[in-house]
């Protein structure tokens, strides 16, 4: 310490007047107080992955909603004369490494040779249907199935898990045995059997996934509630005479929400994947409707000569699954109380 003795000894006596810090000064909290969700939001914003995920999802949602009406082609309009045209976007056609110049795999300008005036942004399929419109209406269906499945899982899972854990005892025992047996059944098998019996369609595919899908959510909710049920703040509230409803809605549910939201976020991509998978083995949405999976399946048949037919929907479906995974990862990190600083 540089301060020398004489300097310290000669400090003005005035400085040694007593001065108590005011109540507010002593209790002043240096950092703003945040509730759980504000804090989680701040941490979520710091996660680059989650931000990328949110942006990709927003873009894809935008095109899923407005994409199909951005040009004049309907998703089922066939035009054999315009079949198998590669993608062409005027503004991007100058960039050689992008596949939007209207040339086929051999660098041959198909639009010029066939004298096609209109540009198909994502090209056309073997029946001359516009892939731009089909891709985005397929995205709609895929997203719809994914989100619907997640919502139904959410509702069943929360009720089942919540009831099982809250009532405990015999009820819990029986309900858990049922789950244990359901979990033992490989779910893809159930899904396939279900769809074989009911015609493939949006509803049957969603239901098929829900039949086994909710067990994961129910287990998580049950685990969380059991853990919370015996924690001091719940006991305290119960001691103070809170009603069952109040306990469930004010204390248990808000604290269970974190893991539940994360699980839901992971359910969406899983359902989208399963739907695409079913379409790919021929059990998906029936034509003329198309989901991303059935588009990939259609495109795969001509992958050797017209790879774009498969690439476009493949990229979109991979991006959807990726963005939901990124958001779910980010949320998990943001909601994990252990990470709170």
């Amino acid at each position, binding site marked *: 310490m540089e301060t020398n003795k004489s300097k310290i000894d000669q400090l003005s006596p005035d400085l040694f007047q007593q001065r108590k810090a005011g109540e507010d000064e002593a209790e002043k909290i240096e950092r703003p107080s945040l509730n759980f969700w504000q804090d989680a939001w701040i941490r979520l914003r710091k996660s680059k992955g989650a931000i990328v995920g949110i942006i990709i999802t927003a873009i894809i949602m935008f095109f899923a909603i407005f994409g199909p009406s951005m040009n004049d082609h309907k998703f089922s309009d066939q035009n054999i004369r315009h079949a198998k045209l590669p993608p062409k976007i005027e503004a991007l056609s100058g960039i050689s490494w992008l596949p939007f110049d209207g040339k086929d795999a051999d660098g041959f300008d198909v639009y010029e040779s066939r004298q096609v005036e209109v540009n198909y942004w994502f090209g056309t399929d073997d029946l001359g249907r516009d892939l731009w419109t089909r891709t985005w209406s397929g995205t709609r269906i895929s997203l719809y199935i994914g989100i619907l499945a997640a919502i139904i899982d959410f509702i069943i899972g929360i009720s089942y898990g919540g009831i099982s854990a809250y009532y405990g005892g015999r009820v819990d025992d029986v309900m858990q045995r049922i789950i244990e047996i359901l979990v*033992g059944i490989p779910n893809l098998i159930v899904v396939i059997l279900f769809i074989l019996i009911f015609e493939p369609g949006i509803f049957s595919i969603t239901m098929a996934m829900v039949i086994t899908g909710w067990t994961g959510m129910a287990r998580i909710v049950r685990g969380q509630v059991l853990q919370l049920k015996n924690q001091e703040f719940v006991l305290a509230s119960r001691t103070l005479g809170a009603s069952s409803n109040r306990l469930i809605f004010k204390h248990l549910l808000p604290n269970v929400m974190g893991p539940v939201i994360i699980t839901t976020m992971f359910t969406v991509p899983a359902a989208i994947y399963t739907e695409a998978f079913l379409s790919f083995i021929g059990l998906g949405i029936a034509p003329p409707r198309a989901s991303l999976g059935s588009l990939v399946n259609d495109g795969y048949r001509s*992958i050797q000569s017209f790879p774009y037919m498969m690439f476009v929907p493949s990229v979109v479906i991979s991006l959807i*699954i*990726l963005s939901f995974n990124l958001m779910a990862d980010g949320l998990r990190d943001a909601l994990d109380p252990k990470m709170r600083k």
Partner: protein
Amino acid sequence: MVRYTIQRLVYMIITLLIIATATFFLMKLLPGSPLTNQERLSPEQQQIILDKYGLNDPLPVQYVKYMTGLAQGDLGLSFQYDNRPVTQIIGDRIGPSALLGFQAMVLGAILGILVGIIAAIKHNTWLDYGSTILAVLGISIPSFVFAALLQYYVGVKLEWLPVALWGEYKHTILPTLALTVGVVATIARFMRTEMLEILNSDYILLAKAKGISKVGTVVKHAVRNAMIPIVTILGPMTVAVMTGSLVVERIFAVPGLGEQFVLSINTNDYTVIMGITLFFSVLFIAVIFLVDILYGIIDPRIRLAGGKK
């Protein structure tokens, strides 16, 4: 431990019974019969065929016959392949699938564990970020997309490996890779999380305080403890590989179970669908059972406590 094992076994058998029953009755609900795909047959001929499959019996009789057949390992006859027992079809097809599945699991587990360990040790460095990004891509790209891309670039464009052939060992490379990606990514993510948690634990601090080197603490203390929970995801991983095999085998024309399954779905060959369904279920349940037991064996906390906590 013994009591726990027996309890698990009982559950396993109940589950199997339920699956078998459910498949049986679901199949009865299905439209179509062995007659659907046959050429026009006289009523007498139809009668002969229905007799052959036992379809003239009342439902309960059919059920009992089916279940007793199952108990003896008889899965019935295929609707499509004249007179061929389903068990024989499965037997013929199991080889390639087992080979691919085994290779994918082993390769995936080894790579995944290594990547997970490296990412955790190099936490918050470009190695960690890089492998994290690759892993999230790996779990996001559907296996059939990845398989098709592999086929297109390695097979069609570069012509390094055949597009879709089966026979030589090198033909297993692409399908194995396609199946492995998801396994590597899942295990790597899991391993990384486990390792990070363990590396921040008190006992690692104590190991360091003993003077054990960084490598020593990782190898002797962290990895072993992180591997134990990894065992639990072997079950889901098996399912993922089984699921993946349905599409991957189709893409690479592998004469395996998955390819047969998809084929049977498209030709309404119900007995084969049922047979393969049951076979997959048994496999899955057996893996889950083994994992549970294995977990108990390698984790002293469970092994010595006499049951799962």
